[in-house]
């Protein structure tokens, strides 16, 4: 078992990116296998559809008298059923593990491997999507098909746009949550930040109440935040409720917020890791 001499540095950066890309297929496959091991988590995914369904029942009983704002009964059905599906496609769960790894030193093992630790979490996040789509997609599609009324814009162009916006939403969620998770370098309260983020997002993203039904002032305010971009934007696009200029604005806003979030993560990482290296764990 002789050791081959290590080829001395080519351009370190290019080599790193190439190696990272080459590692991804394996990362995705292994985390896909891991996803299948967590059967309770899968059950929770399915049950978490309950919140929109309860909201839907409330709105439907109110909409019996006639449409509320621009929403009639059919719109509500389409909105909440699609919300369940899109939420599964964009929901991210990384803060808890990141927090634990940083605080207990589990991060060390990853730091010693030639791949940035973020990629394990990103691969894990991406790898769970197909199964979630497979489990939640068909019942939602069936319900939409059986219930007359909901209008979705299912033209190929729109489906493509919605997919792109949903993927961007997923990345936004991931990088914002990663930034929150990185606060564990400084505080033991990272999980508390997560709860704040989660609560504001539930309201600000249109998950609980469609943003279009909120007071105009609040809608204006939310337009300056990333929250509508992680759910409401692709959701309303799927319902065919967005004019073309709003669609363009949405994509631009997603791009800008993603740039911001990635920059934030890079900055927090640099500062945090310096601290980690000073104190150890």
């Amino acid at each position, binding site marked *: 078992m002789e050791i081959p001499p290590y080829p001395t540095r080519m351009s*370190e950066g290019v080599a790193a990116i190439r*190696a990272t890309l080459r590692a991804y*297929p394996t990362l995705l496959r292994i985390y896909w296998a891991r996803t299948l091991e967590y059967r309770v988590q899968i059950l929770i995914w399915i049950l978490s559809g309950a919140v929109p369904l309860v909201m839907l029942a409330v709105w439907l009983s109110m909409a019996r008298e006639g449409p509320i704002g621009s929403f009639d009964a059919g719109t509500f059905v389409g909105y909440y059923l699609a919300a369940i599906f899109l939420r599964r496609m964009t929901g991210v769960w990384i803060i808890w593990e990141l927090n634990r790894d940083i605080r207990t030193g589990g991060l*060390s*093992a990853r730091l010693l491997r030639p791949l940035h630790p973020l990629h394990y979490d990103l691969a894990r996040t991406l790898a769970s999507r197909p199964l979630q789509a497979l489990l939640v997609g068909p019942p939602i599609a069936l319900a939409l098909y059986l219930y007359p009324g909901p209008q979705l814009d299912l033209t190929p162009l729109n489906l493509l746009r919605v997919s792109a916006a949903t993927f961007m939403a997923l990345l936004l969620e991931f990088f914002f949550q990663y930034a929150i998770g990185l606060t564990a370098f400084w505080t033991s309260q990272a999980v508390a930040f997560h709860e704040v983020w989660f609560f504001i997002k539930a309201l600000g993203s249109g998950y609980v109440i469609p943003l279009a039904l909120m007071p105009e002032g609040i809608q204006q305010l939310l337009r300056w935040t990333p929250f509508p971009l992680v759910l409401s934007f692709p959701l309303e696009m799927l319902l065919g409720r967005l004019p073309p200029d709003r669609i363009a604005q949405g994509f631009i806003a997603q791009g800008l917020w993603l740039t911001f979030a990635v920059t934030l993560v890079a900055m927090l990482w640099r500062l945090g890791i*310096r601290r980690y290296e000073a104190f150890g764990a």
Partner: protein
Amino acid sequence: MRAVEVHHLHKYYTVHHKAPGLMGSLRAFFRRRYRVIRAVEDVSFAIEPGEIVGFLGPNGAGKTTTLKILAGLLHPTAGEVRVLGFIPQRRERAFLRQITLVMGQKQQLLWDLPAIETFLLNQAVYGIPKAEFQRTLEELVELLDLEGLLTKQVRKLSLGERMKCELAAALLHRPRVLFLDEPTIGLDVTMQARIRDFIREYNRRTGATVLLTSHYMADVAALCRRVLVIHRGHLLYDGDLEALAERVTPYRIVRVTMAQPLPLSALSPFGEVLSLNSHRAELRVPRARTAEIAAALLTALPVTDLAIEEPPVEEVIRRVFAEAAEWDPEQAARWPELEEEEEEGEGPAAYAGG
């Protein structure tokens, strides 16, 4: 090029500490008191390629801190460190690809999947070519006897089986330098021996450099000719394990078996009798006079078998630490806090550089 070079390494931590109880917590909330912990102080040593070196010291002596600095996980406060010519803290890919750090207490295996999945993950992460990966894996399976374990879920493996898989996972990329922190902790004697044999064999086959810490002196005695003894952040001794034994334990053990049982009074003129069990006895004799006393025993008594042994390594190490503690009795009295104390004085110099 040397495998490891350490020049005047220092590592200090600042920690805040808090009095126990409610009031203590409240006070700490408003005004934190900080204290400097000197985990490593002015440590220098070098390791040549292919050496196996044992790193000895009680808990909190600074062993793990030093290993983490060498692996690039911690920044030194002062001093210079080179591993294979790299500055570890930069964690360049070329560096990470050539080292490994195994911590017996921490694991990298994916808990819910079979170990082979972690191996494949490492193959991808380290970019190990397929043929090379297969070859290394087969070798590791043979050396560590992993047959049948690789496809079992990690959480269903026993501690020893898991440790073997951890070692394999850490060696798939064929590192040239191994930092092993308590690789046999918590394992039973058979498994400890097995891991030991493996480390020796890996070193023999690959010429890799190994720096290992262990609480089990048997590990160190079996693997390492050279030891570094660290205590309260200071390097007390760097050199041959046998020379260390000679220096701190100026005696040897003579074991005799006699043709018939003899009374204590017949043996005690030859040395301090440690044990006497009908016709077997153990004597402690001055190191310099060992041969002379052995000869005298053979002529004076009906001896059928005689063996001269070094004192057990535990004894040697215990003496090193005991002597180290003597140079400042006040600090020695507060033994549990030792790693946090400031240290001055001549003590370490007495052993350093030996």
